[in-house]
């Protein structure tokens, strides 16, 4: 069996007939492999789920213990043998628990990248390159305008702004799973030891990260009913809450957002962001193209985002590639 027939796109997501499972299915299925805990990849209601220990914990935390008929937790690297079809999960470097799926049968190997990045992240294991015949890659930031600067530089800009506007609160929009904890960990690395204040929607996942062994330092919920509060402090909230009513009690907040989209001015301005922080948990253009060049797989399938530019780039390098239209893609978070 050749690599390009092991998996095929279906309306429910990538499907492996030989193993009878879907990868990150978009609707409830009998058997699912889940690469990581973000809502557009990990959904509730599947019959059986295979995923990492951390992603299983994240799914239970978000959806409850009964979120799947059964969850099989598998450590990174451990081979699951389904009668000649061999599966294993290897670190993707995207968020805590995130994995690439490696599928092998009869000497053919497919790697499904899931969402990934190559930058160091204090909250999760780094991406592990696995050579393969078919690489199914994400393409969220697959335009050459997306080149993420070092995250430490962006954190330094945040801290510079805190020094410049000590009478204002700094409100940072960050995705609740992964980004928020990474920003906190980066702030700690940069020496910010004060309590970091959290919007209610971030509390549970931060506590879970700590349980799973990721130290985040002192965290406090934003107290309710405040007036002109938390000047000089850093507050994290989900991106959608940046311009919400709840932040009105904060002291004249500087609105910041930690996202790869902040690379483009218009995107930042549209969201009313004053301090755009280009911090992404996705691979940027150089990481996407560099990974393909490094793996040099027999074929590349491009999913999740801007497939046109990445397929074009592969063409200029003589790398066989095609766009893989998947239903239910969602590029809204990173």
């Amino acid at each position, binding site marked *: 069996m050749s690599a390009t027939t092991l998996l095929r796109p279906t309306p429910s997501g990538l499907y492996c007939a030989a193993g009878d499972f879907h990868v990150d299915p978009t609707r409830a299925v009998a058997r699912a492999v889940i690469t990581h805990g973000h809502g557009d990849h990990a959904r509730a209601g599947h019959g059986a789920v295979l995923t990492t220990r951390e992603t299983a914990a994240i799914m239970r935390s978000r959806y409850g213990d009964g979120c799947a008929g059964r969850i099989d937790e598998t450590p990174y690297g451990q081979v699951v043998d389904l009668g000649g079809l061999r599966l294993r999960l290897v670190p993707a470097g995207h968020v805590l628990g995130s994995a690439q799926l490696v599928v092998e049968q009869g000497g053919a190997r497919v790697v499904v990248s899931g969402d990934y990045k190559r930058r160091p992240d204090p909250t999760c294991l780094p991406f592990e390159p696995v050579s393969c015949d078919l690489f199914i890659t994400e393409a969220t930031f697959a*335009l*050459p*305008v997306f*080149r993420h*600067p070092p995250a430490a530089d962006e954190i330094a800009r945040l801290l510079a702004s805190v020094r*410049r*506007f000590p009478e204002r609160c700094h409100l940072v929009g960050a995705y609740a799973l992964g980004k928020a904890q990474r920003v906190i960990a980066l702030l700690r690395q940069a020496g910010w030891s004060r309590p970091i204040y959290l919007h209610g929607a971030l509390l549970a996942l931060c506590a879970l990260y700590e349980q799973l062994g990721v130290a985040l330092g002192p965290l406090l919920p934003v107290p309710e009913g405040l007036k002109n509060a938390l000047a000089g402090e850093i507050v994290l909230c989900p991106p959608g809450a940046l311009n919400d009513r709840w932040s009105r009690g904060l002291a004249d907040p500087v609105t910041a957002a930690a996202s790869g989209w902040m*690379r*483009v*001015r*218009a995107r*930042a*301005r549209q969201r009313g*962001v*004053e*301090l*755009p922080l280009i911090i992404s948990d996705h691979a940027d253009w150089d990481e996407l193209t560099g990974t393909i060049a490094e793996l040099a797989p027999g074929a590349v399938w491009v999913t999740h985002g*801007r497939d*046109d*530019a990445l397929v*074009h*780039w592969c063409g*200029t390098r003589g790398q066989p590639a095609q766009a893989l239209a998947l239903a239910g893609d969602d590029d809204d978070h990173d």
Partner: protein
Amino acid sequence: MQRFAALLDDLTYHDQRNGKLRLIADYLRTTPDPDRGWALAALTDGLDMPHAQPALIRSLAAERLDPVLFALSYDYVGDLAETVALLWPVAGPGHPPPLGELIATLGRTGKAAMPGVVAGLLDQLDTTGRWALLKLLTGTLRVGVSGRLARLAVAQFGAVDPAAIEDLWPSATAPFTALLAWVEGRGPRPANPGGSAFRPVMLAHALDEATRATLVPGDFCAEWKWDGIRVQAAVSGPARRLYSRNGEDLSAAFPDLVGALDFEGVVDGELLVLAGPAVAPFADLQKRLNRKTPGAKLMRERPARLRAYDLLFDGPEDLRPLPFSHRRQRLEAMIGSGRPGLDLSPLIAFADWDDLARRRADTTGTAIEGVMLKRRDSPYLAGRPRGLWWKWKRDPHLVDAVLMYAQRGHGKRSSDYADFTFGVWADGDRLVPVGKACLGFTDAALEHLDRWVRGHLVKRYGPVAEVSAGLVLEIAFEGLQHSTRHRSGIALRFPRIHRIRWDKPAAEADRLDALLALLG
């Protein structure tokens, strides 16, 4: 250059005026001379840079970048300078020149060598630096900082009186080393500008009915508001200058007037041209403004005249701190029964506001467009202080708006831009569109306007061109209503372009508040 780029970058995101002031002051504190002075020049539009056409940037992009990836990226980003800044291949850690050096380099580079020099600079800069350079080159900083805001930041940076900065600014030149040394307390106060230097002008607010009702007639003098352009004549011995309201030297275009001036001091007034004894239409004045050096025939048929209404300096004596009524007496005494080139704008005697409104209404068809109200006790202050001077224009309502978008016309005008969307300033330094007009142009004016649009194009959306905020259109309209369709929340009734204010800086166009006040 990187520091300046970071400043521009921060300024684009910060909407609050105080935040912008702080950013500029911080920059001035942490950046050495002469770079910080050059940055101020760039922010205050005082930089004489060879502007590169977008075509040059496109051709650089075509040389260095994959056309498909460029097209996909441009489509996504939507801004040429930003797209190229983001895409430019990184050559390795660069050693970008300081801002002052960079400006000097560009200044001495000829057209043929420009692409190579710009590409070399792009290679040295990081993303933000490349973006800032391309914005500088295309002359569209658009970071929401008016010259006035930048000067205020200089004052706050050094804790000096903003009025002193306004006063010294016109005679200071980039990179402002002496001025900044004084501001920092390291050097002497630069000498007050000489007798023929430009002094910043005092401007009036538009008067709405609600405010008018609160004013006491006896507190004010009334003058006609002339349909000319605001000028300042400064004479000191042989040095005679005629300035526009923003300090542009107009002397060469009006040698007939400048040659005739025989007073000593600084006079504030209206520049008019005459047709026989009467004031000629504004279009005739426009004709003279368009000629850098007028012919003898034009000067004979349309002589220029200064209608004086204020005296800032009498000889070397600074009258600006004195009350208007006192300055007016000195002006009348200076002009006496008349001086060459100069006459006195009369005061209008009036019993009450209704009386003045009637007199104002009687002026239809003259070179008068309303009345000016000036508090008798008002000192002469730079800028647009509140509550001292009011302009009470005659109906129809007029608003000075800024051209934002142009669209190609139909039929005979299908190849020209003939349909114009304009806006006014709202919260901070953002333009909001208030209407659209396509009527009221001669072909010659259209052609002129069309050329301007092509030269200031920022972005194209199909047939619609977005232009940089640089041209003021005086819009006449019959009334105002609330609108949910426009971002500004208001719609003008029967707007038409009354005239094109080539002379007026965009930053001084009207604000949304002024229009909202008309709604009552």
